[in-house]
């Protein structure tokens, strides 16, 4: 029997791994009335244990690596990791610069990639819908 994941609602945990905060500004824009993600049944959750989706930004930093891995480990399967922005996708301004990694999405196994520096709220919404579709498949 297949059942749509809570009618495609998503609990989202956000993980910042060396982003410039531009991606965060656009993630926050999703709560503006013009986008209003609460109407999609999406919410930003207070624990990785509550998360269906981990959104991750930045190239990855040495100081975040352990906390990032622990966050992923703390989630309950199934969970979809979404690489948000060019840096997390491995193509951004800070990938491989200084002590930064090559992209947090690749390192953590992102299944969905949302490009942009930063991505627009519309692109983010599309990426999260793609994550909901993947979760539907994994839950069926």
């Amino acid at each position: 029997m297949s059942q749509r994941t809570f009618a495609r609602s998503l609990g989202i945990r956000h993980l910042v791994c060396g982003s410039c905060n531009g991606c965060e500004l656009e993630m926050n824009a999703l709560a503006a009335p013009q986008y209003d993600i609460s109407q999609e049944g999406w919410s930003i959750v207070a624990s990785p244990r509550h998360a269906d989706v981990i959104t991750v930004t930045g190239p990855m930093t040495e100081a975040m690596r352990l906390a990032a891995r622990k966050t992923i480990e703390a989630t309950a399967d199934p969970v979809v990791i979404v690489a948000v922005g060019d840096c997390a996708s491995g193509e951004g301004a800070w990938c491989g610069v200084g002590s930064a990694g090559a992209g947090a999405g690749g390192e953590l196994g992102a299944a969905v990639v949302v490009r942009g520096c930063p991505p627009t709220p519309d692109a983010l919404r599309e990426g999260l819908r793609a994550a909901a579709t993947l979760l539907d498949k994994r839950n069926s």
Partner: protein
Amino acid sequence: MAEFYRERTVRQHDLPAELAKIANGALLLGCYATERTVRTLVLSKVGVLALRTPLEDGEAWESLTARYPLFADHEREMAAMQGIDLRGSPDLRPLYFRADAIPEAILAEGKGVSGVVVGPVHAGIIEPGRFTISTAGESVVHLDAQLSYSHRALEPWFEGRHALELVPKVARICGNCSVARSWAYARALESLAGIELDEGAEFARLILAEMERVHVHLFDLGNIAAGAGYGKGTTAALGLRERINQLNHAVSGHRLLFDSIVPGGIRVGTLSDPASLRTLLRELRDDVKRFLDAFFAKRSVLRRLEGAGIVEESLARRFGAVGPSARASGIACDVRTLAPYGAYRGFTLSEVQAHSGDVYARSEVRRHELERSFDLLERALRELGSVVLPVPVQIALPSGTMTTLVEGARGAESISLSLDGEGRVERLHVISAAFRNWPLVTRAMEGNIVPDFPLVNKSFNLCYSCVDR
């Protein structure tokens, strides 16, 4: 008009006396090292003065922190990045760390004191930091903020690269203060090259910088509303911010205005339709005013802001606070009025001030600064008229050292730059307003209740990316 930047060599032994002479009436901006030369930066009415202190082989840096607490993290950065032997600082923990070697947090000791640790991953869409809160009952006794989770060692990577190649990188050091930093970087290059900009380009830069201030201030007020449990205010502020982000996109092709200011002018195609921008900004201004009037008429919300997170003027001064957070404690520190640059030179501006130093005052300052920004936008767009903006001027880059300052939404953003004569960067150092203000957040929490941490924190709403770099 050329930038006013002077350097004077001062031996370390004489530095405290020099600073004591200058410090009264000037703004201490911190210090940074290039290999074994330390520059201590001061802003006075005539511009930036750098006290240049070369260290001998084997000479340690005797910390200035006991006398001037604002130097604490600047000195820790010199120790971490240039290997300067730092002596006598009250906090000698490494400023940057790897995940497998996080320094111990500082916990208060005493009967009934316990610790709460939050972060580096948080329950919202915010950057990473680890906060260790020592509490006695519900009250915060001490807050230790360990940032550095966004540290990417960017500054050493800049060295040896061509200064113009780094323009898009500088715009992305931090998403919140991108325009301000790009402007400071462009001015440093133009000033070293000795070029002046066309008046139209200067008006255009002012417009872009004020649009950045509007979107950041609206976001900050929305976050303060969230911290006070005023959900309607948060939604309204985010809705208004979205409108300015859409206007940003219309004028620059980028919702956060990245890459719109380039050395030699502004990017081709930016601000191509000032007349319709003026109309749309007037509409936005009316709606922002309605939002602010409603926010500041909500007694029950304001009561939650009053008395929370108080920063006394003397504390703000000792820690070298800048921006709206310092102005809320009665300190005059707006670079636009203290050391005007670009088109600000043509306008008479009075600095917004408040005095209670609490979350309310920091909100009130932003409220009035929003009004001023819309005023400036209207005036600059009127001056700009319908001129066709010039293409960026080509610049030739000689060797030299320069520090420039721009008033970003969070306060004084500085770029310190040394070039080698062939256009390559010898040193590019960023001191952000957030770097300058973080120590205040920790002090502001003392004596407040733990549940007010989000409210007090958001009333500063400091970035991490430009702090950690």
